[in-house]
């Protein structure tokens, strides 16, 4: 009995000693991504990466436990805004991140910034939020939409392409992508097609591909994220266009579409070129660890969406630790601005509009040593590139 009492007292004491840490509110991080509709294939990859980052940081930032709250945007701006409102007002999260889609982010950002909380986009980078509508509390850890296509336009110039036909979905990011290519490409844009997007997106591109063929353009440039990418590549190949036009893409040939293209035997995509800020083979120690652990856990290469999600959580962690906690929003914001690297990409700094200044690479679709289709960096198009809207931001 005596021993038991002593033991219980001991337990009580250690519990009491442990209490101050335990009693700390966890850092709650809200994540808005797409978990339903076919676009959920991206959201699920993003979720896996957030969870892997959470594991890698031992579930804590600055000694405080972290809680991740996932919400679905249903691929629709109004649903994404509701989800954001719920996270901010009902769940009382400290920071909101995620956001795959520009139109969803544009509808949602104010719900967070007006509550004087910080929002970190892990993918969407619409021009509006980089320029006139920039906000001190809005951060982006991926890229501004125009940057990747601008780099691609540069690649087209370098490779002596004289005329190009453009195809993209008709929504905020699609228009940014088109304007990005037009910004740097010096040859002729002989035609542009913006196709229906959203919940009832157009997936049969027969009419547009026929126009592209008839236009006689030397190259076809396309932006079709998610499952539309696979459908686009397949129809491009089936229509026999591969013999007539060179194919260049942004955000279309990725770790989500490649295994499916491989399964379908559409080897026309091998060797195709795209520009991107990241690739699984990008040489940083953290990236190697991320890619290896992701592949070990899920049996597939992570997509760039996943890499950016991983970066987003570590970006928040870095700022929280530099600021000594999440409570002081001003300190966290200043620490985020002062960030100089992201785990999967290495050196990255942030401009006045809180968008990253980073390298853009040319990646080629290849077969890896194990026979899987993936991408490999074959050149650097821009070093420490800043988006063209930063000057419009009055932050």
């Amino acid at each position, binding site marked *: 009995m005596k021993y038991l009492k002593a033991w219980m007292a001991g337990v009580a004491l250690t519990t009491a000693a442990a209490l101050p840490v335990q009693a700390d509110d966890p850092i709650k991080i809200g994540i808005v991504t797409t978990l339903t509709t*076919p676009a959920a294939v991206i959201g699920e990859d993003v979720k896996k990466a957030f969870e892997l980052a959470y594991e890698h940081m031992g579930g804590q930032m600055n000694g405080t436990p972290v809680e991740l709250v996932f919400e679905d945007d249903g691929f629709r701006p109004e649903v994404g805004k509701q989800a954001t409102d719920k996270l901010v007002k009902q769940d009382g999260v400290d920071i909101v991140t995620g956001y795959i889609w520009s139109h969803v982010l544009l509808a949602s950002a104010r719900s967070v910034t007006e509550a004087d909380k910080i929002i970190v986009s892990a993918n969407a980078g619409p021009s509006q939020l980089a320029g006139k509508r920039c906000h001190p509390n809005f951060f982006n850890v991926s890229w501004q939409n125009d940057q990747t296509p601008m780099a691609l336009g540069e690649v087209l110039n370098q490779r002596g392409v004289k005329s190009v036909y453009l195809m993209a979905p008709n929504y905020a990011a699609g228009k940014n992508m088109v304007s990005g290519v037009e910004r740097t490409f010096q040859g002729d844009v002989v035609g542009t097609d913006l196709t229906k997007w959203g919940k009832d997106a157009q997936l*049969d591109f027969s009419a547009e591909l026929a126009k592209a063929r008839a236009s006689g353009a030397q190259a076809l440039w396309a932006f079709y994220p998610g499952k539309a990418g696979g459908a686009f590549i*397949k129809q491009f190949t089936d229509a026999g266009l591969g013999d007539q036009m060179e194919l260049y893409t942004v955000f279309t040939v990725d770790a989500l579409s490649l295994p499916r293209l491989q399964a379908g035997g559409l080897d026309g995509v091998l060797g195709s070129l795209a520009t991107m800020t990241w690739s699984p083979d990008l040489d940083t120690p953290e990236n190697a660890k991320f890619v290896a652990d992701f592949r070990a856990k899920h049996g597939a290469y992570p997509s760039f969406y996943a890499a950016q999600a991983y970066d987003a959580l570590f970006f928040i962690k870095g700022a929280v630790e530099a600021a000594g906690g999440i409570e002081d929003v001003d300190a966290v914001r200043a620490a985020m601005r002062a960030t100089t690297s992201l785990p999967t990409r290495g050196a990255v700094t942030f401009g006045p509009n809180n968008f990253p200044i980073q390298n853009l690479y040319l990646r080629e679709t290849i077969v890896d040593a194990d026979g899987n289709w993936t991408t490999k960096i074959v050149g650097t198009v821009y070093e420490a590139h800043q988006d063209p809207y930063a000057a419009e931001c009055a932050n």
Partner: protein
Amino acid sequence: MDLALFVTQTLNGLQLGVLLFLVAAGLTLIFGIMDFINLAHGAFYMLGAYFCGTVLALTDSFLLGLLIALPLTAAAGYIAEVTIARSLYTRDHLDHVLATFGLILVLDTAVHWFWGAEGMAVPSPSWLSGQVGLFGAELPTYRVAIVAVGLMVAAGLYLMVAHTRLGMLIRAGAANRTMVQALGIDIQKLFAVVFAIGAAMAGLAGMMIAPITEASIGMGNEIIIVAFVVIIIGGIGSIKGAFIGALIVGVIDTMGRSYLDQLLKLVMSEQFAETAAPALSAMLIYIIMAAILVVRPQGLFPPRTR
């Protein structure tokens, strides 16, 4: 005008048209005969694609996929009729909409649960790969095959409706349901059969489109709205109307996507035309529908008597 491009776009329009017809035919029969609004009709389009894709993955034969998936989709339609639709015929349209909308959510989630969110890549049959030449245009063989199959099904459906006893009952049911019942026909059995046939046709459309766009959750919801436009244009309950309406919608939608920007450039600045054309071509079929409703509120080919 570039003839090769025009031929290609006409084929693309026809291909969209016959797929729309396969979906709309079942929809218009179910709506016309049973006075039942089946929002979940598109779900059979999706199920057909997934069934076919699964069989194809197991057997490596697209034809076998079609042959096995067709009766499976018909069975799914039959089950839906017996378990859900049957008890709703006497209720009003709002109840139909609510129940079948619920059915969409259930089936979409079931597919998500069973096959995953990523959709299913369905390889096109190798014997239909490649292109055929026609008037200087290179047409993908597979799309030509879709048009051929769609037209054959349309012809078969016409023969059935016009020249068989089942077809006579269907026509009679569309014209006057109560009278058919009064003449001693087991109307419940007729309804179940029509539901199953409609589901199978929608499923066939899904099976044929899957190699082009892949099978995905919610693919039926994309086509069902347009299918409703088709049956409203064609006249509710009329198969002929569904056929002509589908071809009109398919060709107009495709032509709008192909030529509208060039047409607009004739009357407005290039930059404005490039912005307006995609928005306008997305609305085009609805504008046509509204115009037809103004002139003929009952649609182009309404069934003769109601």
